[in-house]
């Protein structure tokens, strides 16, 4: 127990919390609106003033995944086999429909204006004009990510990762093998490294240039989130009470280096998101506790956290910083959600 005066949580001083009727799958900012994708198949927009709009039935059934879209919109995938695009005004369009499939893996690039959709063992590439072509994989594709320039995408699956050129199915593809089930995948900002989360509660990484690979293990819980700091120096990871940071500053990435700790939650971290500009990150835990941590002194041990939202018993499932870094949105498994404005605070 800490003594002294505890400052009120930031959500009470510079933000607003509210209850959504269903669990939050993910959240993204489009301009000054936070778009919450919820499990009941709806998308709900909130801004500083309150609820802007709600679109129910974006999916007929469960909304399983969401990602930033091809432009000023988000994409959602559902167990109705549809990929929908929802913009800041609440306009919903269908980007693709895959009958009988559950859409659980989805990624898009604003730069190349392409989306990748996991359809069983295939990845369908969609543009604004519809499906372009498909890529076959060795096993069901469970995670997708575009490199920052949007040209290549990485697909995580059982047995490793396959990297393909999204616009040219005839081009040479790169297979990065590692035994085990790979669930999600991220690229470093400089596209030099790829990192996956694994069913085995470990991370696996590859250096693209030479295929050198490395294992980052020791997590007591499922690793549900990864986020690189804006300067690409650190990879922040969920999966432990400590927010674990892996160094990516050198040419070797974390090979031969130790992890650092940004700070600690009371329960295993389930969501983490680095600020797009400053050396801070938001991290949420299994019990709903949400904190703000500095990354600047990473390596020097855990630093003092600012409480954003106190624990309430349900895990934090979604976190998003606005592009300008002024706003933060969060959502939880029990529907608790909030938006904060850091304009005067950071």
């Amino acid at each position, binding site marked *: 127990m800490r003594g002294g005066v505890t400052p009120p949580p930031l959500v009470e001083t510079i933000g607003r919390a509210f209850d959504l009727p269903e669990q939050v799958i993910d959240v993204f900012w489009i301009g000054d609106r936070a778009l919450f994708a919820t499990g009941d198949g709806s998308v709900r927009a909130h801004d500083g003033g309150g609820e802007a709009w709600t679109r129910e039935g974006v999916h007929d059934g469960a909304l399983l995944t969401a990602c930033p879209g091809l432009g000023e919109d988000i994409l959602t995938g559902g*167990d109705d086999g549809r990929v929908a695009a929802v913009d800041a005004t609440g306009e919903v369009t269908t980007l693709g429909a895959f009958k009988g499939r559950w859409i659980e893996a989805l990624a898009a690039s604003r730069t190349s204006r392409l989306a990748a959709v996991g359809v069983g063992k295939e990845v369908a590439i969609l543009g604004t004009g519809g499906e372009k072509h498909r890529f076959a994989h060795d096993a069901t594709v469970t995670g997708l990510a575009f490199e920052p320039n949007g040209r290549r995408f990485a697909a995580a699956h059982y047995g490793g990762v396959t990297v393909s050129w999204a616009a040219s199915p005839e081009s040479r593809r790169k297979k990065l093998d590692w035994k085990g089930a790979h669930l999600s995948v991220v690229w470093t900002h400089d596209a030099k490294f790829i990192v996956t989360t694994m*069913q085995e509660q470990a991370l696996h990484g590859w250096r693209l240039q030479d295929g050198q690979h490395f294992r980052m293990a020791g997590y007591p819980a499922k690793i549900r989130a990864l986020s690189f700091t804006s300067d690409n120096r650190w990879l922040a990871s969920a999966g432990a009470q400590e927010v674990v940071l892996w160094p990516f500053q050198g040419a070797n990435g974390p090979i031969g280096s130790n992890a650092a700790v940004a700070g600690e939650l009371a329960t295993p971290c389930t969501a983490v998101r680095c600020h797009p500009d400053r050396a801070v990150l938001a991290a949420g835990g299994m019990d709903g506790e949400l904190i703000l941590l500095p990354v600047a002194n990473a390596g020097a041990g855990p630093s003092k956290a600012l409480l954003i939202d106190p624990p309430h018993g349900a895990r934090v499932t979604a976190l998003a910083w606005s592009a300008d870094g002024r706003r933060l949105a969060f959502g939880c498994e029990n529907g608790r959600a909030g938006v904060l404005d850091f304009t005067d605070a950071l």
Partner: protein
Amino acid sequence: MTKAAVPPYIPAMTAPIPVTVLTGYLGAGKTTLLNRILSEPHGKKYAVIVNEFGEIGIDNDLVVGADEEVFEMNNGCICCTVRGDLIRVIEGLMKRKGRFDAIIVETTGLADPAPVAQTFFVDEDVKAKTTLDAVVTVVDAKHLPLRLNDSKEAEEQIAFADVILLNKTDLVSPAELAAVEAAIRAINRYARVVRTERSNAPLDTVLGLGAFDLERILTVEPDFLNPPHGEDGHVHDEHCGHDHHYHHGHHHDHAAPSAIHDATVKSVSLSTEQPLDDRKFFAWYQTLLQQQGQDILRSKGILAFKDEPRRYVVQAVHMMADGDHQRPWRDDEPRRSRLVLIGRNLDAHALEQDFASCVAA
């Protein structure tokens, strides 16, 4: 001074959703049973995970096709395989609005039940949000003898079962039926056998069994299932009245001989009325599962530890074990520990001795 705000978000303590795993050879009657479960007016909402869309009636329920994708876990545990597709489907079901009363997982006829069962021990979300209620195996009374002799899977499906639906009993003579049941008993003494004709078992013998099924370990006397000593099918155990520990020159393999199938899988039951030392027990059990987990298909038990008022319930699939303290022992029930092991190459005598050495000093 204002008091710190108490968060109004007290989470709904939702009980884990029970999952029934349905196994059995093609043609044994799985689909008939599934159709009955889905069509009977039970007022429940089920999610059924099938390996392909068959002719299954859908009303209030959800039927999901899965692709039986078996993952080997890269965690140093050689027999640890899980169903990756099942993890994804269950995660997806948990995102839907509204709850299911139960989930039923159908496996293909040739499937090894271990990956399905192990999925419930390995994945954090699946473990937290669902509970393995029972493995139900449908067998065809007419064709089981043939299946047992030509496939390892048929034997394993019986070994894994908590409930065995002995179906199509109208197609065999009473003598054949008795022989088939003895063959089942030789493999798995602790499953409940329900005789049916067209998979017409009362649903409460198939679904929602939960703890009840573990209770069977304690409450059903093996003698009840056991033909008398000296008769075909008799299983030597602690109730058969001769002393095991000093009875040499006679191998107690605890497998009832069966006229129609030479079982390689058998059941061993260990029990004691003396309280166990929890540290000794876990050290032994963990080592046992590590060393012989490939051969031990299932184990389950209810244990009484010294100075512990609550019952400890444990179950394992191969090397993956999961256990917890449950309700306190009642005054009117004997504090008897029992552990049941079903598997291959089990040395009952050695197991009995090892188990006895876990008794608290």
